[in-house]
């Protein structure tokens, strides 16, 4: 089944949007990096928090020195609004718990719309 999430104009770079698909399941569509769209199941695999209410943010890393921060992959990390569990929107994988993974969905642009294959 294919679902139109929105038009491309409605999802600018580094933003996300939640759409409800079959039986009301939320899917989060993220636009990052620019020109790339990703879709993941919008319910946190930890305690069920609504990921669409969370934060789409950077990957925060460090060269190793305490107190140093490096930011990369702008808006490619989805953080849960509850416990801040971090998910890579490209893979659905949780950054800190290998047991937790979100289902991912193919996304394409068709006639100016962002379409998710469910």
């Amino acid at each position, binding site marked *: *089944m*294919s*679902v*139109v*999430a*929105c038009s491309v104009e409605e999802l600018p770079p580094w933003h996300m*949007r*939640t*759409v*409800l*698909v079959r*039986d*009301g*399941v*939320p899917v989060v569509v993220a636009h990052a990096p620019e020109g790339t769209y990703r879709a993941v199941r*919008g*319910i*946190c695999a*930890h*305690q*069920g*928090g*609504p990921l*669409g*209410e*969370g*934060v789409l943010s950077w990957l925060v890393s460090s060269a190793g020195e*305490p107190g140093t921060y490096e930011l990369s992959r702008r808006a490619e990390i989805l*953080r*849960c*609004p*509850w*416990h*801040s569990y971090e998910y890579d929107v490209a893979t659905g994988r949780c950054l800190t718990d290998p047991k937790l993974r979100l289902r991912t969905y193919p996304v394409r642009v068709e006639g100016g719309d962002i*379409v998710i294959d469910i």
Partner: protein
Amino acid sequence: MTGPTAAPAANEASAGARKPGPPVIDVDVHEAFSSIEALAPYLEEPWRELILRGHWKGFTQPFVYWASGGGNRADAKPDSGPPGSDLELMRRQLLDAYDVRAAILTGYFYPVMMGDMQVEFASALAAAYNSYQIEEWLSADPRFLGSVHVAPQDPQAAAREIDRVGSHPQMTQVLLGITTRAYGDPFYFPIFEAAQRNGLRIATHHTVHVEGSLGMGRYYIERHMLIPQGTMSQIISLICSGVFDRFPDLKFVCLEGGFTWLPHLMWRMDREYKSLRQEVPWVTRLPSEHVRERLRLATQPAEDLSRDELLKVVDLIGSEDVLMFATDYPHFDFDSPLRSLPPRLPDSLERKIFYENARAFYGLPENGPKTAAAGAA
């Protein structure tokens, strides 16, 4: 191909993907005022005017939060005011999203954080908060039960406040915020005397000033990991200074400090007691006996235990009666009644943790909280 669907906040509770879960008595729910000025109608002068002039803006934390919503769930921010201040949102996200039969309100405005300065102001704030809580929260939903807030740095004033509002039918306990004060000190005995004569319990809850044994740490994550040390320190203090012995009718609950460390603490306290009892002869029982009989721990944060791990901890505690479920709504480390404890627990244990232990602890009727009868059929 189907068209787009507007998407309101959705999670497993609201999406109807699972049943609403077991009946719950939630022993740690943080209501909040929309702003400090909300206390003004309940303050006496000279304090009221000082608040209305903006001479004090309320408490803040000495660190920055990193979680998605700061210190709170990012989805719990109302259209106006801070998380926890909107009753309708709290109903949607907590009371009606799950099968919550009663919610113990614990606030997050703890005048102990004033420290030793201006204790009269701290006591006035506590009294105003209690009046605010009664007028604007306890009267608003029959599922709410309340906590008496005090400024423990002035124990006589705290005792007077407990006597003033402690007989309210929805008040259940005196809340003592944990900073760096050890409440076993006889200085605080007037508070325990007042709680006992009013039939109230004692609850502890950390504040943003709680420290571990080596301070708050360099990072917020470190400080959050250290929170149980404050709770453990209070239990040790209360037992060794004889509070459990001197006030035999009091029962105690420690909120938001976790529980998996309790077996260690019981073993350690008993070991030391067997060696060094003569230093504290006013302690007349093994510490572990006091704990099992009269101390309860809220489950939040539940630390993602497996079923086997949780059953082991309960077995090591030696009682199924100690743990009481809490969500900590609306804070960011909220525990969902559906997902924070492992599935397939024995029915009797699940019932005890989510409901029965709190029902017994707070002396509520078999069929549910007396004040909640109308709202929790």
